[in-house]
């Protein structure tokens, strides 16, 4: 909010509904809609409305990027590096160019350009070919002759930290070309280890330890997890003399447009990015990426649309991953449970990329005056990491929440009671209370207390995630003269159901049914929406949608007022009708009849995301900000561990989550179940395996890369708080990432409670469980 804006005062509902909602005053811009009532007073928002695109998705009609077919479309394939580290001495693509049906060749690893002449991981793109069919493109790849000079490589996190390890990068210039997203500042480094960026350090951790009655410490290790989106990364690029249209399976249409405009020197209005149905991203489809650039170059070269879809092996090698970590935590506490010192050191690897830290969860979850963290990125010769559902805090929670539980045991505190004393969040306090009741926490026994070979246990863990907001996010709402209503935004629905939620918001404001709102999204020809990452889509997009609906409704009311000769404040919209509240002219008219009086074919309003009403905690770049409150979550797990086979079965999870105002409980339940299942899969199964002798990924597929399926799915109970803060026109925030962060540590704490032995490494496979029980020798960790 700028100083010169005219403000008005309103009273907003504030508080957690299960604890009682009160009111608080807010100064808001004069043209913002009135405060939205709590959900139980609303007609559409907060109700379990089915997805607007559900019929298309259950009949096969939904059109994904991989389904896009354009006239004269070419098919592209990428030649990828067969070894983990090499200098490209020469490339000869003449035979490929000469193959009938080949229409364009794009050399990506140019031996004459210093920034691209070295490949740093197996699977790195070398060249791409576009041909009249995919088979010809594939055949052409085999005709490209590449001369490699193999270089020493390292794919193992621990080995890469050694000063004698082969260097992934010789210098800064060599790195620059590879780094695409989530890039941290380049800092001096030692071998493959990049200096950590210190954040949040406070007090004196050594001094804090002197005040401690108890000190616990532990080392934890998390695996590299791959995104495994069911729809592969896909793009159809259509370069024409009058502009570029790109169909992309992306989490951020407007961001991809900006990148294309910049890199191909096109004005923004000549680049259009479109995504209809989108088959999952989880952080891996946030940017254009090298294959996307290549598809555009191929289209420009061939004067034809080019379709490029990665296969599953390419997905596993080069579409991003959750970095693996090694973490060391040390916590000091007094006998009363208060923390005196907390420190975390981590070495993580995002392959050739950066961003392999353990987040801000240790820094911010608990009250502790003395905190220090050092989070190092370690380069290895493996595909670059990218953001993945709760980056940083997900591996970070695995170490932190187990160490906190260990502290509770040492202090002879119940884990919930310890957290009650050190976690200042009233949200999580309420979540602990609700969750404990649901799971039956009072049944929890001493660690390893079950007598038989199958031992049960209960565990809890907490999550912390910033409430992100994209301030560069806009929506348009239109009313047509025949009563049709549509909402337009470039925001994309990656499976979360944002299209449905936007229909609900507009329907609530206009007194209509969500079916009556045509949702047109996923196209940069519409007002630019935000990205679908960082759990920010709902927080960013629903307030401008409501404001735009409010404004267009006021426009309709004003025209009606003139038409009927009443005051424009004499109207209300509800149940498909507009009521005229005027003593002389009291009547109801249908929305359709009301729209028919419009002087033009349609009216519309474009609105953008306002700042939160109390302002933000801080800005996050020019287009985004961090809200004042965090999104808390607490999860409880019940497990059964077979101590003879080492198999862990998660039988039940209770997830208690906060996303501000819940917009659609049906969709939220789906998304939280998905977060829990991804966390369960991370806890028990998922691990990218690298062969340290060849530098190749051993399981680049979906059968040896293990994922949880229907048989591993536990009973998942989802409880969502209604947490009103009076911060925006909808007061809604995200849920995707918060629902994923606490699952693995909750399971790990439950496993400890079951067997009395703590698991320090993910995934908790039967081999690792048996090794922890001393029944088989410990495995060397897998890198």
């Amino acid at each position, binding site marked *: 909010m700028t100083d010169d804006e005219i403000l008005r005062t309103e009273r907003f509902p504030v508080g957690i509904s299960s604890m009682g909602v009160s009111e608080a005053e807010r100064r808001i811009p004069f043209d913002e809609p009135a405060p939205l009532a709590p959900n139980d007073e609303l007609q559409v928002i907060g109700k379990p409305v*089915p997805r607007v695109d559900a019929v298309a998705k259950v009949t096969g009609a939904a059109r994904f990027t991989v389904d896009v077919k354009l006239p004269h479309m070419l098919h592209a394939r990428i030649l990828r590096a067969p070894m983990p580290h090499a200098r490209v001495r020469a490339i000869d693509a003449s035979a490929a160019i000469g193959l009938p049906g080949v229409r364009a060749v794009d050399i990506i690893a140019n031996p004459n350009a210093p920034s691209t002449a070295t490949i740093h991981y197996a699977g790195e793109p070398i060249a791409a070919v576009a041909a009249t069919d995919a088979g010809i493109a594939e055949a052409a790849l085999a005709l490209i002759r590449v001369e490699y000079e193999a270089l020493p490589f390292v794919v193992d996190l621990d080995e890469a930290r050694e000063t004698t390890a082969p260097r992934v990068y010789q210098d800064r210039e060599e790195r620059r070309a590879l780094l695409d997203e989530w890039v941290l500042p380049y800092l001096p480094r030692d071998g493959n280890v990049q200096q950590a960026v210190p954040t949040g350090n406070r007090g004196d951790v050594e001094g804090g330890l002197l005040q401690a009655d108890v000190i616990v410490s532990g080392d934890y290790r998390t695996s590299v997890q791959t995104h495994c989106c069911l729809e592969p990364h896909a793009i159809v690029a259509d370069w024409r003399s009058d502009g570029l249209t790109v169909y992309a399976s992306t989490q951020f249409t407007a961001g991809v447009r900006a990148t294309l405009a910049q890199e191909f020197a096109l004005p923004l209005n000549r680049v259009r990015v479109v995504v209809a*149905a*989108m088959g999952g991203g989880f952080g891996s489809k946030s940017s254009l990426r090298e294959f996307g650039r290549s598809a555009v170059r191929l289209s420009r070269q061939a004067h034809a649309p080019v379709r490029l879809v990665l296969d*599953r092996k390419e997905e596993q090698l080069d579409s991003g991953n959750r970095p693996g970590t090694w973490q060391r935590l040390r916590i000091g506490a007094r006998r009363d449970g208060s923390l005196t010192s907390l420190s975390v050191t981590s070495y993580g690897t995002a392959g050739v990329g950066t961003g392999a830290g353990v987040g801000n969860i240790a820094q911010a979850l608990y009250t502790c005056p003395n905190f220090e963290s050092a989070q190092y990125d370690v380069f290895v010769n493996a595909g670059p990491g990218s953001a993945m559902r709760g980056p940083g805090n997900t591996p970070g929670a695995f170490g932190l929440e187990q160490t906190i539980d260990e502290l509770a045991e040492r202090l002879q505190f119940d884990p919930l009671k310890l957290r009650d004393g050190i976690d200042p969040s009233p949200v999580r306090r309420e979540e602990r209370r609700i969750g404990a009741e649901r799971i039956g926490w009072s049944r929890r026994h001493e660690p390893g207390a079950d007598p038989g070979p199958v031992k049960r246990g209960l565990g809890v863990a907490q999550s912390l995630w910033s409430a992100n907001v994209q301030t560069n996010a806009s929506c348009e709402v239109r009313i047509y003269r025949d009563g049709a209503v549509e909402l337009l935004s470039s925001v994309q629905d990656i499976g979360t159901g944002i299209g449905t939620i936007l229909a609900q918001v507009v329907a609530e404001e206009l007194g209509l049914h969500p079916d009556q709102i045509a949702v047109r999204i996923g196209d940069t020809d519409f007002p630019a929406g935000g990205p679908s990452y960082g759990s920010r889509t709902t927080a960013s997009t629903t307030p401008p949608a409501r404001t735009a609906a409010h404004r267009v409704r006021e426009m309709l009311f004003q025209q009606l007022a003139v038409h009927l000769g009443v005051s424009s404040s004499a109207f209300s919209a509800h149940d498909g009708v507009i009521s005229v509240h005027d003593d002389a002219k009291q009547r109801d008219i249908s929305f359709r009849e009301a729209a028919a009086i419009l002087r033009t074919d349609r009216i519309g309003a474009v609105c953008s995301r306002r700042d939160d009403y109390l302002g933000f905690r801080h800005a996050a770049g020019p287009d985004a900000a961090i809200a004042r409150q965090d999104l808390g979550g607490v999860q409880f797990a019940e497990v059964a561990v077979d101590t003879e086979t080492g198999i862990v079965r998660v039988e039940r999870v209770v997830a208690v989550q906060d996303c501000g105002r819940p917009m659609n409980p049906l969709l939220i339940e*789906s998304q939280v179940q998905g977060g829990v299942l991804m966390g369960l899969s991370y806890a028990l199964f998922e691990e990218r395996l690298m062969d340290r002798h060849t530098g190749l990924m051993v399981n680049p*597929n*979906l059968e040896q890369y293990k994922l949880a*399926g229907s048989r591993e799915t536990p009973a998942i109970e989802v409880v969502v708080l209604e947490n009103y803060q009076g911060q925006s026109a909808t007061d809604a925030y995200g849920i995707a990432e918060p629902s994923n962060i606490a699952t693995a540590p909750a399971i790990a704490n439950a496993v400890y409670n079951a067997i009395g032995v703590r698991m320090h490494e993910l995934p908790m496979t039967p081999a690792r469980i048996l090794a922890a029980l001393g029944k088989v020798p410990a495995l060397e960790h897998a890198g």
Partner: protein
Amino acid sequence: MTVAEEITVRVNGVERSLRCEPQVTLAEALRGPLELTGTKIACNRGACSACTVWLDGEPVCACMLLLVDVGNRSVTTIEGLADGNGLQPIQRAFIDHDAIQCGFCTPGLVMSCAALLNVTAHPTADQVRGAIAGHFCRCGTYPHVIEAALAAAEGTPA
């Protein structure tokens, strides 16, 4: 280069003829020349079941079957399931229970659940789990898929 040959297959009750090379899989033929893109390819090696279609009513991975090997068996895809008579109960149940997120694996899951209900009108939850055990859904819709299949069976006369 291999030689394309004329192949006739019965898809969703209609005889379709196309010229294609012998290495083309049923999934590729459906999505390509037959323009039935509701069948999805996600792993292309029988590990994820996204491409599930029916062969004489039995669910199979269309990516693991060559088109030339279909022979005179009849193929049913997600587009043919509703058969012009509106949604099948399992499709309605998927919508009501939100057994959908991104929707990419959904057609395959619908086909496997529908096939189960054809042979087992009132399955247990474990039978549903078994019927979809070969499917991967990264969004994690399994709980709602199981609910939907049981609910669709509820609506079926015993």
